[in-house]
């Protein structure tokens, strides 16, 4: 976001540079193009309607599910799982990443273990979580939290341990140590990196949500996906994918908005 802004800023004096709104509009071109290609492929007989239903059919599936009142339910439960899981995982990632980034002892003690746990592929957790936590909401939320935790943990610990030592020295020279040093120097210096870590964590939260819902669920967009496969409803399957993309983008936009606000406030 800031990149595009800078580009417009530098390009402005030359020729007729595209405006900010214009640049935003360019981002819509590719999705429209993809939609066109989809329509073309679906109607040209390259794929059968069972393999690739045209966009209109997906839209009508959307209408059906909305009319039956099911869709909101799926969307709501998935979003809820992601938000709760992300909040928990991000909070833990911030806390543990902060500890590891700020304290060399904590880093030496915790880092190897966390790295090892991180290496476990997401799906490997599912059987264990089901065994321990049953089939309710908890295992799904925990899996999302695991997914959100690692990007946040990694970026926060790296950002805090790489703060410009010159600035840390200013903090010390002006009498800050301990918590005041963290609050006035280390944390503000690491904030941009921390925010992008949060965005990564959120994206990975959605990833892990689908993993959880595909395997053990009776609700949510991941369930809709696997259910549509079982019932041969490709239109619903595509709908679920489109919705996942839209929701992921939407939640990321909120965080991205916070990021831009912060950057402009600092400029």
């Amino acid at each position: 976001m800031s990149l595009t802004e800078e580009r417009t800023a530098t390009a402005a004096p030359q020729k007729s540079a595209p405006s900010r709104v214009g640049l935003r509009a360019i981002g819509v071109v590719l999705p429209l193009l993809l939609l066109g290609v989809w329509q073309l492929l679906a109607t040209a007989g390259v794929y059968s309607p069972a393999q690739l239903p045209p966009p209109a059919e997906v839209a009508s599936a959307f209408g059906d599910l909305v009319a039956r009142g099911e869709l909101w339910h799926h969307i709501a439960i998935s979003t809820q799982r992601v938000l709760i899981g992300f909040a928990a995982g991000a909070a833990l990632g911030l806390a543990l990443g902060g500890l590891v980034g700020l304290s060399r002892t904590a880093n030496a003690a915790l880092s190897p273990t966390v790295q090892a746990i991180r290496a476990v592929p997401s799906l490997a957790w599912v059987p264990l979580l089901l065994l321990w936590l049953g089939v309710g909401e908890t295992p799904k939320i925990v899996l999302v939290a695991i997914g959100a935790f690692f990007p946040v943990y990694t970026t926060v610990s790296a950002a805090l341990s790489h703060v410009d030592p010159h600035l840390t020295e200013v903090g010390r020279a002006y009498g800050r140590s301990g918590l005041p040093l963290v609050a006035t120097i280390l944390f503000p210096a690491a904030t941009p990196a921390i925010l992008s870590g949060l965005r990564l964590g959120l994206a990975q939260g959605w990833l892990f949500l689908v993993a959880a819902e595909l395997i053990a669920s009776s609700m949510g967009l991941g369930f809709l996906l696997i259910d549509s496969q079982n019932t041969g409803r490709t239109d619903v399957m595509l709908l679920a994918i489109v919705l996942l993309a839209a929701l992921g983008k939407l939640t990321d936009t909120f965080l991205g908005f916070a990021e831009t606000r912060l950057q402009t406030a600092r400029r």
Partner: protein
Amino acid sequence: MREPAGLEFSGVGRAFAVAGRHRQVLTGIDLTVAPGEVIALLGPSGCGKSTLLRLAAGLDAPSAGTVSVDGRPVRGIEPRCAVVFQEPRLLPWRTLFRNVAYGLPRGVTGEPARQEVEHWLRVVGLDAFAQHRPRQLSGGMAQRAALARALARRPGVLLLDEPFAALDALTRLRMQDLLAEVQREAGTTVLLVTHDADEALHLADRIVLLGSGSDAGSGPGSGSGSDDPEAGSVVRLVLPIPGARPRDRGDTTLAELRASLLSELGVNVHGRIQA
């Protein structure tokens, strides 16, 4: 403003262990700076000027001897000292106003804090830029803000580590005048590390020359020659500067001092046309 403080180094030594090897940087530094005095610290690169300054600030601890401010030994960060580094080191996420406020002593808040910050911003001529960010400033402006931040700490001793070295010649002269003015107003004790003999002659009451001790006083060109890496730097020379500050930059008696100072620093001045 807090009262100017005296600064004393007695038998100060500092050694570092670099890659397992012992490296003595400073040895037996004895120096007493009177309250309100301006000392310029000169010496070849790497002789330990910054190290000595950091010892006074409490950013580092001596391996031998003691540093004291007004008779009390420095332990940890010294609240009566304020440092200006070679780079402005402003916090990029804070406005200029809040950067200067960062220097305020603990306990100064609310309206008095606001007035104090505005006062120092005015002194360094940046009152119109209070709401600007550091990246919107020129190098000279940023360094002035850093000076204001240090002054907001109401230091008894102002420690300046080559504060003007990165500035262009004209800005540097302006900053020197500003420092002289601020010092006169506040009466602060100043320890100024510099590479610039003219700057030292213009601003200081005394010039202290650091360097290797083994070949002290053996003539021009010897300063950078037979350094004994094991020995560490000592105070080679303390040179009182005649006349009241601020001095005329074109003063002829200073020209002689300048020549002898440069030869002490290992610069051959005899072959050059002197201004």
